[in-house]
């Protein structure tokens, strides 16, 4: 029998600190996509709340309860982080394991918003994008999910793009640091 050692998507790439900016990887144990069946959006949300304490978030929103986070990720779809969903929930919607499919990073620092303003074509000004808000958008031709946290941004890209995403983010962090 072999002992298979798990590796995170940003293994060997993060953390990095440049000037006052930091980019770290958030290790994800469980992440499941949940897509309510046709016509069951409301009951699915209730069932989700009963199962893990978070409601199905509306577009561009997240919901959280303790360590459990629900991030809206697209039309009729959210990702539940931090909890293993009961199989019974599949009566309300399609469950698909995404725990290994995404690189999840956190960007922190005063100028974090300036970094993302160079990479993503979305309005991230404080008034337009508050803590708990989320967007699906692109980052240098990569599909990305960006969520505003209280102290920075959570950025998710598909696992195979991790190296490119880290490169693009850190190069931009350098340019921002040099301007400061």
């Amino acid at each position, binding site marked *: *029998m*072999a*002992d*298979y*050692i*798990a*590796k*995170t*998507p940003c293994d060997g790439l993060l953390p990095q600190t440049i000037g006052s900016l930091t980019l770290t990887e958030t290790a994800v144990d469980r992440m499941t*996509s949940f*897509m309510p*069946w*046709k016509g069951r959006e409301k009951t699915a949300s209730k069932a989700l709340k009963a199962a893990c304490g978070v409601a199905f978030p509306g577009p561009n929103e997240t919901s959280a309860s303790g360590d459990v986070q629900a991030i809206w990720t697209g039309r*009729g*779809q959210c990702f539940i982080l931090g909890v293993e969903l009961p199989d019974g929930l599949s009566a309300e*919607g*399609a469950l*698909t*394991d*995404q*725990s*290994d*499919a*995404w690189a999840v990073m956190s960007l922190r620092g005063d100028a974090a918003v300036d970094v993302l*303003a*160079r990479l*993503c*074509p*979305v*309005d991230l*000004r404080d*008034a*337009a994008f508050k803590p708990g808000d989320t967007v699906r958008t692109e980052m*240098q*031709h*990569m599909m990305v999910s960006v969520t505003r946290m209280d102290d920075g941004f959570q950025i998710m890209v*598909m*696992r*195979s*793009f*991790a*190296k*490119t*995403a880290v490169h*693009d983010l850190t190069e*931009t962090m*350098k*340019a921002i*640091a*040099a*301007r400061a």
Partner: protein
Amino acid sequence: MRINGKGLIDRSTPISFSFDGKKVQGFQGDTVASAALAEGRKIFGRSFKYHRPRGVMTTGSEEPNALVTLHSGAAQDPNMRATTQEIFEGLQVRGQNAWPSVDRDLMGVNDLLAPFFGAGFYYKTFMWPGALWEKLWEPMIRRAAGLGALSGEHDTSRNEKAYAFCDLLVIGAGPAGLMAALTAARAGADVILADEDARLGGRLLLEDEEIEGKPGHVWAADVTAELMGMDNVRVMTRTTVTGAFDQGTYGALERVAQHVAAPSNDTPRECFWRIVAKRAILAAGALERSVAFANNDRPGIMMAGAVRGYLNRWGVAAGQKVAVFGNNDNAWRTARDLKSAGVDVVAMIDSRKDATGEGDFPIITGGMVSDTRGRSGLREITVQSASGDQKFEVDCLGVSGGWNPSVHMMCHMNGRPAWDEATQSFLPVDNMVPGLKAVGSAAGKFSTQAVLEDAHAEAISALLDLGLTSADTVIPTAEDGAHNIEGLWEVPHISKGYKRAWLDFQNDVSTKDVRQAAKENFASVEHMKRYTTQGMAPDQGKNSNVNALAILADATGRDIPTTGTTTFRPPYVPVSLAALGAGARGKGFAPERFVTSHQATVDRNAPMIEAGLWYRPSYYPRPGEKTWRDSCDREVNMVRNAVGVTDVSTLGKIDIQGPDAGKFLDFVYINMFSTLKVGRVRYGLMLREDGHVMDDGTTARMGENHYVMTTTTAAAGQVMKHLEFVHQVHCTDMDVRMISTTEQWAQFAVAGPKSRELLNSILDEKIDNESWPFMACGEVSLSGVNGRLFRISFSGEHAYEIAVPSRYGDALFRDLVSRAETLGGGVYGMEALNVLRIEKGFITHAEIHGRVTAFDIGMGRMVSAKKDCIGKTASQRPGLNLDEREQLVGLKPLDGAQQLSSGAHLFTKGDALTADNSQGYVTSVGYSTSLECFLGMGFLVNGRARIGEQIQFIDRLRDIITTVEVVEPVVFDPEGGRARG
């Protein structure tokens, strides 16, 4: 010459730089032009065609003459405006388009041939003899043309792009822009104020006038300070808004470090911004225009506004004996400012007979400058008036033909401005660009007071649109003089001889050229432009288009509005490609995707190839192997005789769930999937709606309502988009959900007679042929890790694909490979994979290249008659089902040692090798170690009926000409016993 006490430069901070190797001493706040002018430089550049010496003409980015090259080596930067380039210690400036230098340019001889180089001359000659055009004439023209030079070295500068969002974008920070920004900012709007200068104030920095009882530049500095202190305002200096695009998107170029002597390696040189604004105000001011008169291009002849601009902002007198020539009130300011600074004003010449200006200098009303002298710098002007011709010795002439509002950005969406008689200029009309309003001089308001009032009013109107109410902002009092003007475009020639009055200084277009174009029936303004090249130079006609238009109107007997205008197009100022393409240099052009086995593969020195953004191994060389073929042949044998392992994670995987999942797949694929048993896998082919093959792959039924589809690597994204389309547009009633799981699973093919033996050494529960027959699938466990196992084969061998969550991909890959090696096998790459599938006649996108149908690849009968599916109806069109279509066949050389090449064409034996006779082409080839010969796949007219025929195999590009036998696509183990065994 510097004038003491004048200018906004910091005389306590001297800065030196070089111009054509000569040291120039300037001060903080100088541009290359102001510092060089101060030291008496006359010639700044050479014109494009005739290499005439040219001096600086303006103070801004519209400068037509003073184009220079900065730096050298990889940093060499051609065609930079001396008028906007800020100086810094050690800056290297070189003149361009001249040899040996702009001061002494031997190409100036071109000017002597000018009579033969008139408008469109090249369309009429160089046609004989034909061969000489490309060999002689064209290279000559190319060498003479062009302005500055690229270094030829890779650009290594760092640049960036960025996005910004705001309520109100104010373009330009002269009096209008400052007033508009201040009004909006005080009302709480989120404002971006962008100006191309390093310092805000615009024309206020160039004029000697007061606002609110203080100097204009002081008022500008006060407003700047207030704006800089507000959280809701972003002031962007050195930033030129370059273009207006749809839905309030603007492009802007910020010069971040071009004024810095030694920026750090991480500092971007330029940043290209995309600014999204709910509303925008164009406060770009106006540009002064010249008047056409004989020899109006001599160094020392400048715009009148520039002459006083150099005086007021930089404390520079552009000459010691200056005349001013204009047709409007505004020009008189130059004479007055110069005079009060102690400069000798030789004459104020106004073409208007009734001009009423005053000043302590000689005044000639109803007069016009009709000729000038001075080859390398202005020495004398001739003035014609009612009292006859007078000659004046001068070294500088300020010219003003009036002002053209900077309406360029308003025209970026094809809107046309309207001619205004009163101001003799084109003014913006409503709704040229949705959400963008021109204010101030850009809208034809020419007194500072009128500019401020207009800007204030338009800012309030913008605030209303934004749902904001304005705070109390008082309009300051300012200069409110009249702006009388009488159109003057060309001074009639009175002197004899070959003399030209220039319009487009950069492209050397004279009034003669425009008149000749009209004569040759290039009477449309667009034809005139294209025939003469008027307005096509780096200033894009900013300095000359209106004048040229007026000359054309005169030449064709029309008025200006009837003659029309050409279109202004983005960018407003030239934008470096390094900035527009920032981030793309090197590998940055497209993201790179890596599989979990990447490092292990790199560790084994496998050359990588690119496949749909992914990197995949070509082959895995072992010591002693000399060529890729050695490795490939070994890897093929390994799979055929033992076991091989390769990473197939790049194939698209789509999780499809729901009560209608089977029905949905039936509609997407040509064959049935609702009938597939749970725990089984089936090959599927999908079409585009046009009846041609889109993609293929296997789909596994993991549960009653749960399928996992695989796609080819290249088409994964396209298929996902297609499935969403079919669901959201055609099958809205179906209860089905899908999501990509490509990244969730690391998946490896384990192929060969010993594949099961290998798997059984790692699976927690052993498998056998009964529990996992060919095309079975299900969940498995490996050392406690949950995985999926599919018994499918792309090699024709007994084979599996095993998938585990990606976090274990690296570990499992290394384990599988080392276990395979102990069984006499090992890892294989794409080359071997390709040979294995060619031997089996399996297709890839080399075969399903977009033009083929299911019929063409022999899968026509897979199209289920029981149901409709995407592409089915179109695939039944008669033209897609003809025997004479090119059909998939295998190809085998008659001579076993003969090499085949993909890309060859096929011809019937005995036919001539003409395009008409081509019977098909070759899509894939590989060397079969099993059959010890090359094999090919290709498409052949009526191919299925021609099995056994010998045909010509012709690759004239690579000189491979041979005879092959047409065979079935599958040549190895046609019964398929090895995969099932």
